[in-house]
């Protein structure tokens, strides 16, 4: 008789929206990954591997020691590069952060 299901909480107000500062948020990830080696994959499938200098709210990215990889083959190298954020599919850590 004590096994009754939890009462529905329809009387209580809805919970507040997600907390802004839970660890693991995109902002926290980006703080941890600046200065580290990353893989940036574009929606086209092209990868850019390099050291993340910085980025902004549009996901525009500045990379150092950039290698362009197409189908696993290096197709270009750039000392520095600016990648426009709308093309970015993901940013993945390529070393421990």
């Amino acid at each position, binding site marked *: 008789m004590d096994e009754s299901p939890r009462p529905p909480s329809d009387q209580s107000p809805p919970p507040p929206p997600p907390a802004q500062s839970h*660890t693991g948020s995109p902002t*926290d*990830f*980006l703080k941890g990954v600046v200065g580290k080696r990353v893989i940036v994959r574009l929606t086209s499938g092209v990868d850019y591997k390099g050291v993340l200098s910085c980025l902004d709210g549009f996901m525009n990215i500045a990379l150092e020691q950039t290698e362009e990889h197409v189908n696993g083959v290096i197709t270009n190298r750039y000392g520095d590069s600016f990648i426009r954020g709308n093309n970015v599919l993901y940013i993945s850590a*390529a070393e421990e*952060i």
Partner: protein
Amino acid sequence: MASQILPLELIDRCIGSKIWVIMKSEREFTGTLLGFDDYVNIVLEDVTEFETTPQGVKKTALAQTLLNGSNIAMLVPGSNGPEDS
């Protein structure tokens, strides 16, 4: 009566769990959800990327990864991904 729970509250409850992310293109990701923001940019850990091509499904393992929300179509909470369903 308005819905009791906002869509992103549901996703917030999935933090720390497996999640399946389906992009607008023929691309999917699974991994452990670490966090997200109001744009539904998503941080995953222990990630597998699935890319469906005419040659078949290509899988890529990734470490911690930030997915750009603008390319995300759907999220499936608690799923291990395409190989699970």
